[in-house]
């Protein structure tokens, strides 16, 4: 069967299988179902998935997987310990974006680990959020952490609380909280925008130890300037694997490292080929449509 036939048949088969959900798809040209010009993305995803699954498999088998030290993450436990000693709460902000942002999911994942530490030390934890879905996800994660640490009774439903839906109303409220309650530790992990410096500077003025992590390059300088430790970009996504040391997550992280090596190799090959006037086809393969 050639690809032209496949293109014709695929929408029809899908339409029978999925009914009206495919109405929109059928109204579009056949290539909307399977676009050959995006084959590069498919091959890359398959390749990347293979690496991640391979390392995950090895991790599950008990193969030791080395990870270098990330100072910002090593500081998390120390920072929670400081809050315990001082008898003050830990403030954790999982970013100010919706749950459909990958940074928020990374933040929620780290929250789970931080909640385990606070549960272990009986340290109060406060998690203000901006969106109802993040509130629900945060509550689930914190509750689960307390259950896993055998501290179900210590879990307070108001640990994760909805503050305000507007960016600066949220910031004003959290800043007020910081100055009134003076949490010993502030942890910012997720997507942050213009409020990053307002939060970090207020936390600094309140004398809190601060750890931040975001993948937004335009906000990172502010966190670096006002926080004690900052996780930059990829370090944020590596954090949950690093903190939990769960084989499944470690395997994923190792797989991503191999992908980085592959990207570096491709860039170097492409540049060398381009230098000598070759490699047009090779470089075009990375074209995004």
């Amino acid at each position: 069967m050639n690809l032209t036939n496949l293109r014709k048949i695929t929408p029809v088969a899908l339409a029978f299988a999925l009914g009206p959900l495919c109405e929109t798809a059928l109204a579009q040209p056949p290539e909307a179902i399977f676009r050959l010009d995006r084959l590069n993305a498919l091959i890359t995803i398959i390749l990347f998935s293979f690496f991640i699954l391979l390392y995950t498999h090895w991790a599950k088998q008990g193969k030791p997987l080395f990870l270098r030290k990330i100072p910002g993450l090593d500081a998390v436990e120390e920072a929670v310990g400081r809050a315990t000693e001082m008898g003050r709460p830990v403030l954790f902000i999982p970013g100010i974006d919706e749950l459909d942002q990958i940074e928020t999911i990374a933040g929620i994942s780290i929250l789970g680990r931080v909640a385990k530490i606070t549960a272990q030390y009986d340290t109060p934890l406060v998690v203000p959020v901006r969106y109802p879905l993040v509130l629900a996800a945060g509550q689930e994660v914190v509750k689960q952490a307390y259950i896993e640490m055998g501290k179900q009774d210590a879990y307070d439903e108001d640990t994760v609380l909805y503050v305000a839906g507007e960016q600066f109303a949220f910031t004003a409220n959290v800043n007020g909280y910081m100055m009134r309650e003076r949490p010993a530790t502030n942890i910012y992990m997720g997507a942050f925008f213009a409020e990053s410096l307002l939060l970090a500077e207020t936390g600094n003025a309140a004398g809190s130890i601060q750890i931040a992590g975001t993948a937004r390059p335009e906000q990172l300088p502010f966190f670096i300037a006002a926080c004690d430790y900052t996780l930059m970009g990829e370090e944020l996504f590596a954090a949950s694997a690093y903190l939990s040391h769960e084989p499944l997550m470690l395997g994923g992280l190792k797989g991503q490292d191999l992908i980085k090596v592959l990207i570096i190799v491709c860039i170097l090959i492409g540049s060398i080929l381009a230098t000598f006037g070759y490699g047009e086809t090779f470089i075009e393969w990375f074209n995004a449509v």
Partner: protein
Amino acid sequence: MTSVAILQIWIVAFFTLALFSFLYKDNPVYKLAEHIFAGLTAGYQVGLVWDTVVIQKLWDPMIYDGKWWLFVPGILGFLMFARFWPKYSWVSRVSLAFVMGTTSGVFITTQLHGLVLPAMKSTMLPLGGGGGLAQAVLAIIVVVGVVSTLIYFYFSKEHTGALGVTAKVGIWFIMISFGAHFGYTVMGRVSLLIGRVYFLFYDWFGTFSEIF
């Protein structure tokens, strides 16, 4: 200027000054502004979501346009209300799992196709002097910058020896980029401040002559 317009300007000026008062220290006026701000946005968002999501994206298309399959996201949304009953709150996890799962899945494709592949392509530059010395130097800076930055984010080996040197070059590139971002963003913030100060000096002070 109408009295309503003057009143609006005074309300805005009050809240601007109330929030600026935090620069001195936390105080009751700031607290009042903070709570009104938070309460107003919460109420406003309930109305906004009801109208733009529930009515415009769910109810109307489902009832009037025959898009009955929208009941699937509708039910997923409805399941979130199970959280009000602790015994059945686990049901809401279905919706949460759906959102988190689809986010992760969609993110992989969009980032790979929209960011990683194009960035790789843009970095594959000729390192020779074909386009002149300046272009060659620029190409070398771009390639070295991208490769060394990627190596900084390589977690599987300790950053020692040649890897450590390359990672250090990477962190220099990152810091230079942050410096540029910092300056650019500060410029934007200063223009916001100018906007507020302009409002206070021209719009608010402008009402003084009409009142007094």
